[in-house]
């Protein structure tokens, strides 16, 4: 029996190069140090993405975009067995995924893991983050309830305020002059076909880079002599720990989804006024609040244009950080960039809390 299995393995190995793969898996190590905790957040983001793909396919079985969108989500929530749980899991995992991605990004930033040769890791990661945000925005409309309707309406007013091309962009995305069934159909195509395809390719690239360059060391570890640095084998040690973290995440997700089921709300009605205290998802809250404040200072389109400019400048600065923080020594510039990251993080947190406080 054993020789039979071995001969099958040998046959497959000669054609697929399995030995190289298992050799790579055996050789791969992960650094172990005081900041190792942060290495789990990329994997966690991946875990939540897998949950999204799985629950998303399940929702796809009964969801109908277009005029029946709300009714089909109502059926999923109230008529299909455990439909409420699957929908709730999809919504909760979406939020947890955005959170995990943010933690992952800031941990990479503060460990300075974007430095050479990992620039493309940083860039592909940021593009992935943006795809995740568009995932969130497009998925939010699909139930076509009151909140979704107004969130999308408001969200599309922001690009619409860009001079000259703005209104056309908004119309193109909306597929009409107002958010309607056509918009749902479009967002649906985006959410379940376009974005997953783009995401899969980018994620493959991102993960390939991680394998190619290995985990980055934070500057404090890099300063130590090589023989003082500790590592653990990836297989099975780190993988097992990774899976244990996934299991914890699964438990947290299950409790949240079951104890706090996502609400369905009221069907969207274009003639109804916006409900009191309407606000976007928490990961858009910071931008929402900044636009609100800028709008108070500079009434009219000026405020929105200033806001869009501000976001774009910040984004470009954030994107280009591997190009201006290059030195391996923790010199003055490196410290300044760390401060920049801290300011960005604190600004995000404060404007988000502020946004919720003034609702």
């Amino acid at each position: 029996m054993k020789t039979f299995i071995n001969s099958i393995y040998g046959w497959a190995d000669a054609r697929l190069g399995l030995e190289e793969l298992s050799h790579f898996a055996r050789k791969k190590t992960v650094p172990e140090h005081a900041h190792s905790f942060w290495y789990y957040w990329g994997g966690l983001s991946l875990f939540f993405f897998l949950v999204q793909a799985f629950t998303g396919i399940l929702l796809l079985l009964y969801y109908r975009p277009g005029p029946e969108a709300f009714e089909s989500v109502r059926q999923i929530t109230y008529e299909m067995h455990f439909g409420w749980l699957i929908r709730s899991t999809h919504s909760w995992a979406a939020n947890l995924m955005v959170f995990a991605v943010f933690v992952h990004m800031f941990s990479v930033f503060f460990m300075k893991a974007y430095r050479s040769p990992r620039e493309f890791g940083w860039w592909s990661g940021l593009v992935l983050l943006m795809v995740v945000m568009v995932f969130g925005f497009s998925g939010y409309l699909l139930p076509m309830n009151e909140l979704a309707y107004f969130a999308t309406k408001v969200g599309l007013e922001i690009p619409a305020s860009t001079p000259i091309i703005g209104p056309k962009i908004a119309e193109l995305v909306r597929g009409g002059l107002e958010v309607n069934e056509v918009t749902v159909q479009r967002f649906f195509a985006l959410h379940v076909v376009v974005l997953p395809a783009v995401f899969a390719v980018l994620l493959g690239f991102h993960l390939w880079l991680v394998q190619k360059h290995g985990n980055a060391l934070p500057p404090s570890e890099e300063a130590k002599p090589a023989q003082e640095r500790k590592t653990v084998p990836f297989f099975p040690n780190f993988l097992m720990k990774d899976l244990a973290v996934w299991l914890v995440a699964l438990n947290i997700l299950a409790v949240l989804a079951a104890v706090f089921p996502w609400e369905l709300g009221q069907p969207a009605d274009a003639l109804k006024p916006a409900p009191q205290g309407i606000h976007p998802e928490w990961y858009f809250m910071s931008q929402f609040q900044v636009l609100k404040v800028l709008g108070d200072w500079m009434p009219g389109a000026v405020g929105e244009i200033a806001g869009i400019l501000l976001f774009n400048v910040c984004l470009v600065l954030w994107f280009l950080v591997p190009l201006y923080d290059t030195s391996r020594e923790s010199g003055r510039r490196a410290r300044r960039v760390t401060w920049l990251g801290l300011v960005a993080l604190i600004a995000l947190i404060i404007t988000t809390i502020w946004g919720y406080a003034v609702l």
Partner: protein
Amino acid sequence: MSKPNKHKEPVAPQPESISRRVFTGLALGGVGICYAAAVGYPVYRYLMSPVEKAAEVAAVTEVVVKDAQKLPVGSGVMFKFGAEPCLLIRQAEDKWTAMSAKCTHLGCTVQHEPEQNRIVCACHGGVYDPETGGNISGPPPRPLSQLVVKEVTEEGVRVARN
């Protein structure tokens, strides 16, 4: 004193460590099965929801074929008995037969051909007797399953499960 000990130590824990390894493996496997069941059960019920609904709809014992009393002698009409397509044929003024229209070969829907006085299945050429539903030629292994015509009223023809 220390020499024999050194020889013993690596030998002694071996049987224990193997059983511990087996125990850990079993425990992890058991936990894994629990998790798979906790995820699998809701997913299974979710996927089966429309099947359950269809089974509820299909669980009828009687159907009234509306306006079938107006059918001319020799002709037939298709109707749904629960989820299944069925065939009601007026053989003579007061003689009715009703049967499933689902071919007993591979489940295609059969058709009544009054001119040839037969029921045929276009998929693989099965032929049935329109009076009894008996299989005459072709691949069908069994007769079409029969229904009972209970009564003919002003409203239609009442058909029940056999």
